[in-house]
C-alpha cells in the first residue's frame, strides 16, 4: 500500500554528477534511500529523474514496489515488466544501459545487497564515463556484518571488487525500523564518521525517518540530512 505524504524540505546539495549509484549490505535501507532520494531530486533539481531497480538477488521489498507513487511524481521507473517484475533473475534491461550512456536525466540506480548484488554493476562497467557517477555505500550499524569499522571496510572492498567501480561516498542510514530513535541514528553516524576517517570517503548525507530527524531532540549532524518517508511497507503496516 502506498501513500504520498508531503515531502519535507531537505538540505541536500544538488549532486553535480548525473548518476547516483546506491549500494550497501542487505537490509541497510538502500531501496528506501533510493526512493526518497529520487523524490528529493525530482522536487529540487528541475530535471527529469529516473530510477532503475537493479536488485536481482532479493525477491521482496525492492524499490520497484514504490513504482506507482514514484510515477505519480513524474519519475521514470525502469523495471522488468510482466512476470519478470517478480523474479530474482539476472535481468538487465537494455534501457538501463541506454539511461547510463545517453540520457541527460538524473539516474538513481538501486543495486542489490552485498557484493553479490553489486556484481551486476560490473556488467555495465564500460557504460559509466569517468566522473559521471557517485557510488555511495548505505551504512546501517545495526546490521550484523556492518556493525563495526572493520566489517564496513570489508564490505566496501568486497563491493568494489565485485562491481569494478570505486566508491565516492557514504550515506549514514542506521536504523532499527520501528525501534529507531534519535540515539540509534546518532550512534550510526558516529560509526560512519570513523569509516569515513579510515577510508577517506566523505559522508554525502545522513538519512533517517522524517519524524525523528525533523524533531527537536535530534541534534543536527555536520552533514546534509535526507528525511525519509517509508514507502516499502509490510502488508500489515500503513504509512501514517
Amino acid at each position, binding site marked *: 500500500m502506498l501513500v504520498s505524504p508531503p515531502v519535507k524540505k531537505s538540505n541536500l546539495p544538488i549532486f553535480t554528477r548525473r548518476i547516483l549509484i546506491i549500494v550497501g549490505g*542487505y537490509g541497510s535501507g538502500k531501496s528506501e534511500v533510493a526512493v526518497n532520494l529520487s523524490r528529493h531530486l525530482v522536487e529540487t533539481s528541475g530535471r527529469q529523474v529516473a530510477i532503475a531497480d537493479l536488485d536481482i538477488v*532479493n*525477491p*521482496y*521489498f525492492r524499490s520497484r514496489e514504490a513504482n506507482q507513487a514514484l510515477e505519480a511524481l513524474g519519475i521514470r521507473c525502469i523495471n522488468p515488466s510482466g512476470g519478470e517484475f517478480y523474479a530474482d533473475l539476472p535481468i538487465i534491461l537494455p534501457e538501463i544501459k541506454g539511461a547510463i550512456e545517453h540520457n541527460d536525466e538524473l539516474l538513481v540506480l538501486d543495486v542489490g545487497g552485498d557484493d553479490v548484488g553489486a556484481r551486476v554493476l560490473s556488467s555495465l562497467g564500460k557504460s559509466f564515463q569517468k566522473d559521471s557517477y557517485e557510488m555511495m555505500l548505505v551504512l546501517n550499524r545495526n*546490521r550484523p556484518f556492518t556493525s563495526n569499522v572493520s566489517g564496513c571496510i570489508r564490505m566496501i572492498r568486497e563491493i568494489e571488487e565485485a562491481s569494478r567501480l570505486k566508491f565516492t561516498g557514504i550515506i549514514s542510514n542506521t536504523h532499527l525500523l520501528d525501534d529507531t530513535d534519535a540515539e540509534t541514528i546518532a550512534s550510526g553516524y558516529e560509526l560512519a564518521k570513523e569509516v569515513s576517517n579510515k577510508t577517506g570517503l566523505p559522508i554525502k548525507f545522513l538519512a533517517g525517518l522524517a519524524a525523528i530527524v525533523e524533531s527537536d531532540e535530534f541534534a543536527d549532524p555536520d552533514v546534509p540530512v535526507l528525511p525519509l518517508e517509508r514507502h516499502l511497507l*509490510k502488508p*500489515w503496516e500503513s504509512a501514517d
Partner: protein
Amino acid sequence: MAKVLMKGNEAIAEAALRAGAEGYFCYPITPQTEVAEYLSKRMPEVGGVFLQGESELAVANMLFGAASTGKRIFTTSSSPGISLMQEAISYMAGAELPAVIINIMRGGPGLGGILPAQSDYFQAVKGGGHGDYRVLVLAPSTVQEAVDLTMLSFHLADKYRNPVMLIGDGMIGQMMEAVEFPDDYQEPELPSSSEWAATGAEGREARIIKSLFLDPTGLEDNSWKLDRKYRQMIKEEVRSEKYKISKTNKVLIVAYGTMARICQTAIDELEEEGISVGLFRPISLFPFPEQEIFKEATKANIKSVLTIEMSTGQMVEDVQKVVQGKKPVEFYGRTGGIVPTPDEVKEQVRGIVSKKKTSGKSRKKT
C-alpha cells in the same frame, strides 16, 4: 544482547547456531537462500559443518546420516525443495531421529512462484511422506518468534527424537525486523544421545539405525511406539496466542503466521468501527490447538468463525473439524503469492456481521 536488524532468514540461521546446531545441509531456493548465504560465513566461525548438496534429495539424506550421530543438525528450503525431502523425512521419523527442517513457503503447486504463500499446510501437518508418522510443526509470525521457535525446534526434536518442521511464508524469511538473541540460552535437561547415536562401536555392541522392519509385528510395534510420542506431543506441545478475544466478539478469526499479523491490523481498525473481533493464532500446527479453538469458537457471543489463509483453504479443514458444526466456519483466502490486505479482511468481517444468517460455506476470492 542489544537488538539487531535482521532478515527472517538470517535470524533463523543465527538462532540455529545459538541453539547448538553443528551441521547444516542445504540447496539454494528462493525465498530462503539467505539462510545458506549467512551460514556459509558463520558456520566456519563456530567450527560446524556447512554443506551445499547437489540437490534437496541429497541434502535430506545427508540430514538423515548426520542425525544418526546425535548432533544437532538442520536444513532449510522452500516448498518445491521440501517436497523432494519428504522421503528422507519419513525415514527419519521411522528411525526416530531428531532433525529440524525449515520451510519458507512460496506459492505452488509445482514450481509455482517465489512470493509468500501458506499452501504447504497439508504437506507439513498431514505428513508429506509415507507411513504412520507425524512431524511437530511450528509457525512463527514475527522474526523474533522465528528466532525463539527455531531454538525451541532443536530442543523438541531431541526431546521426541523426531523431525520438527518450522514453516513460515516467504514474508517471514524476507522481511527485516529488530531481534534480540538470549544472552545465556538455557533449555530443560534431556536424556543424552549417547544411548542411541552411532558414534563408533568400539567396545560396545553395534547400533543399527534404520526404518526397515520386515517382521510385521516389529513394524507395528514401531508404529505404535511412534504414535505414543505423537500423543505425548498433543498433550504437551500445543502452543497458541490470542489477540483481543473478549465477550463482545462477534467473529473469531483463526489465522497463523504473517496472515495473523494482517488480521491484527484489520481487527484494530474494525474496533474503531465498533465491530469487535478476536483472533486465535495457532503457533503449533501439529499438535493443533483443538480444545482451545473449540472453547473460543463455541462461545455464545460468536456468530461465526472466519479462517483466513494464504492458500485456497487448508487449515480451515482442521478448524471445521474442531468446531464440529456448532458454528458456521467461513473461509477467505488469497494465493499464488498474493497477500490479503487488512482491507480485504475487514470486508469479509463486515459481510459476516451484516448478514442475518451466515452460510458456513467457504468464500473465496472470485
